[in-house]
C-alpha cells in the first residue's frame, strides 16, 4: 500500500495522457458493458422458455394471423394438453407517447394461465380476471411503473390497424402477477394479459389469432407433435410453423441477424484497440522514465518491485477506466429508452439495466486490459540493466 501514492503521483505527471487513456479505457468498458447488457436482455427471456410449450405461428411471418378454426384441430392432436390463442395487441396508454412501451397481449385466460405456473397470482384475483369481460392482469413491474392498483380502469390504444376501433380499449385491473426469480428465472414482469374474447368482440369479430401457445404432455414428443400440427395445415392458405417456445423466442431474436455474435465481435474489436492504446501509453511512460527506473534500481529497488510499480500504474489506469466506463454504461442504459429513434428499438427489452454480473465482468475486463497492456513495458523495466540505462542519460 505504501507504493500507491508513488504510483498515483506518476500517473498525475502527464495528466493529459493519463486522462485520455482512462477515457479510452472508459469508452471501451462502457461499450462492453452496454453491449453485454443488450446481449443479456436479448437472450434473457430464453431462460424462461419451457420445453413442454410449443408456439404455432403463420409460416410466412408473425404479422400474418391464423384462422380461429385451427385451435380445435390443434387441440385434437394426440399429445397436446391445452391450447391458447395469444395475440399481440401493441397497446399504449398514449398512442403519441410510445416511450411508455410494455408488452400487452390478448389470451384465453383459463388455458393460458394454466400453461404458465411462473405467473404467480392470488386465486381471488385470478377468478376475478376469469369473470370480468374487460378484466386484465399486469406484471408487478408494470403495475409499479404506472402506479396501477387492483380495481383501476385503464385505457390502451393499439397501433395495429386491425385493433383500432376509433376509441381506446378500456380494461379493469383485476390482478397483479409476480414470480419466483429462483424457480422461474427470466420471467417477464412487465406484461399485461387480457381476454381475447374482449378483443374479438370489440373489433366486430373480424380478427383472427396471432399465435397459438400449446402445452404438450411429453416434452420429448415436441418435434413429432410440431410436425403433426404443421402437416394438418399443409394444404391450407395459412400454413403454420410450430416450434418449441425457446426456439420461437430465439428465432424472434435472430430476426435481426446473429445479434449476439455481432455485439460480441464489436466488443472484442474495441477491447483489442484499447489494449493497443493502453500498451502504447505504458510503453511511452516507461520509455520516458528510463532514468528513473535506473535510479530506483540503483537505490536498491528489486527488479520485481520496479516491474510491480509499472504494472500497478497500468492496473490503476484499468481500474479508473473501468469505473468511469461502468458508470457511463449504467447511466446510458438507463437513458437509452428515453432517447428518440434508438429508444424505440431498445424499449422492447424487458428488465433493461446493467446487472452486477455485467458490471463486474466489465471491471474484470478493464483490470485484465490494464495488466496485459502493462506487461510488456513492465517486463522491459524488469530486465533493464542499470548500467545500460545510466549510459543513456
Amino acid at each position: 500500500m505504501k507504493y500507491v501514492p508513488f504510483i498515483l503521483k506518476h500517473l498525475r505527471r502527464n495528466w493529459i495522457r493519463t486522462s485520455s487513456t482512462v477515457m479510452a479505457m472508459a469508452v471501451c468498458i462502457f461499450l462492453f458493458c452496454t453491449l453485454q447488457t443488450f446481449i443479456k436482455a436479448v437472450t434473457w427471456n430464453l431462460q424462461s422458455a419451457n420445453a413442454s410449450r410449443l408456439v404455432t405461428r403463420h409460416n410466412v411471418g408473425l404479422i400474418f394471423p391464423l384462422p380461429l378454426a385451427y385451435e380445435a384441430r390443434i387441440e385434437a392432436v394426440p399429445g397436446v394438453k391445452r391450447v391458447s390463442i395469444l395475440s399481440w395487441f401493441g397497446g399504449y396508454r398514449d398512442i403519441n407517447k410510445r416511450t411508455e412501451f410494455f408488452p400487452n397481449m390478448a389470451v384465453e385466460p383459463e388455458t393460458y394461465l394454466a400453461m404458465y405456473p411462473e405467473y404467480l397470482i392470488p386465486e381471488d384475483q385470478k377468478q376475478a380476471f376469469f369473470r370480468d369481460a374487460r378484466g386484465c392482469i399486469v406484471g408487478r413491474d408494470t403495475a409499479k411503473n404506472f402506479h396501477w392498483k387492483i380495481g383501476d380502469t385503464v385505457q390502451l390504444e393499439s397501433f395495429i390497424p386491425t385493433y383500432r376501433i376509433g376509441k381506446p380499449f378500456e380494461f379493469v385491473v383485476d390482478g397483479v402477477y409476480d414470480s419466483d426469480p429462483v424457480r422461474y428465472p427470466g420471467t417477464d414482469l412487465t406484461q399485461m394479459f387480457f381476454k381475447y374474447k374482449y378483443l374479438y368482440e370489440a373489433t366486430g369479430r373480424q380478427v383472427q389469432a396471432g399465435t397459438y401457445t400449446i402445452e404438450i404432455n411429453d416434452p420429448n414428443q415436441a418435434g413429432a407433435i410440431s410436425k403433426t400440427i404443421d402437416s394438418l395445415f399443409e394444404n391450407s392458405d395459412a400454413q403454420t410453423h410450430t416450434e418449441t417456445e425457446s426456439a420461437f423466442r430465439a428465432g424472434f431474436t435472430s430476426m435481426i441477424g446473429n445479434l449476439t455474435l455481432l455485439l460480441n465481435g464489436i466488443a472484442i474489436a474495441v477491447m483489442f484497440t484499447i489494449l493497443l492504446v493502453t500498451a502504447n501509453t505504458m510503453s511511452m511512460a516507461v520509455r520516458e522514465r528510463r532514468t528513473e527506473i535506473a535510479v530506483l534500481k540503483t537505490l536498491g529497488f528489486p527488479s520485481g518491485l520496479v516491474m510491480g510499480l509499472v504494472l500497478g500504474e497500468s492496473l490503476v489506469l484499468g481500474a479508473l477506466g473501468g469505473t468511469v466506463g461502468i458508470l457511463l454504461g449504467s447511466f446510458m442504459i438507463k437513458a437509452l429508452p428515453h432517447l428518440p429513434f434508438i429508444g424505440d428499438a431498445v424499449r422492447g427489452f424487458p428488465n433493461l439495466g446493467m446487472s452486477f454480473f455485467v458490471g463486474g465482468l466489465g471491471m474484470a475486463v478493464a483490470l485484465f486490459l490494464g495488466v496485459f497492456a502493462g506487461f510488456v513495458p513492465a517486463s522491459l523495466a524488469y530486465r533493464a540493466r542499470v548500467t545500460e540505462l545510466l549510459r543513456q542519460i
Partner: protein
Amino acid sequence: MATMATEIGTAAATVNVQNVRKVYHRDSQEIVVLDGINLSVPQGEFVALMGPSGSGKTTLLNLIAGIDRPTSGSVIVADTNVATLSEGALAKWRSHNVGFIFQFYNLIPVLTAVENVALPLMLSPLSGKQRRERALTALKIVGLADRSQHYPKQLSGGQEQRVAIARAIVTDPKVLVADEPTGDLDAKSAEEILNLMQTLNQEFKKTIVMVTHDPRAAQRAHSQKHLEKGVLLKG
C-alpha cells in the same frame, strides 16, 4: 563475509578491489574496459578517481556501487564480495550499504524534495512518519530543510544535487559513490557540494569514492587515483 575480507588481508579497507577485469563484447569484438585493477580504500577515506573519458572510471565506480559485475576478480565493499551476489541480494545490499550521487542529480520530478530523499527508505520496514522524519533530518544535514516541500523543478542545480546527496545518505550507508557530482554545476554550487561532501567524510565518517574530471574537486579528496585505458596508474 568478514572472514573473506580478512583472508586477503584488508580488514580495515571498506572498498577492496582485487585483480578486477571488465570486458564488454560488441559483436565479435572484445573491449577491455578495466584490466587488472587493484584498489583499496580504507574506512573513512575520500578518494578521487580521475582520468580521461573512456578510461574506465565510471565502470569502476559502478562495480564498487554494486550496479555492475566484474568479468573476473573480486570487489569487496563493506565486507561483502559483491561479485558473488545474486541480482536480488545485490539490490538489497545496495539499499543498505551504498549511497549513489549522480552527475545529473536524477531526482524523481513528481516527488517533493522530502519524498525524493525518503525514496530509499521505502524498502525499509519504517512507517511513513518515520521515513519522513529521517528524510527531514537528511535534508537538514544538507541545509535544505526549508525546501522539503519543493519539487525538483523549483530548485536550483546546486540544491537539487544537495537533495540527491541527502537521498544518498538517508539510509546511513557505509560508502558514498559519486559520479562527477559537480560536473553539471557552476563554480559556486560546486564549491558548496564539495564542502558538503567533505563534511560528510570528516564529521559523519563516510567513505567516499568520487569520479571527477575537475582537479579542484579532486584536491578535496585525501588521495587521487588515476586511470588510463582501463589501468590504474601508480603513484
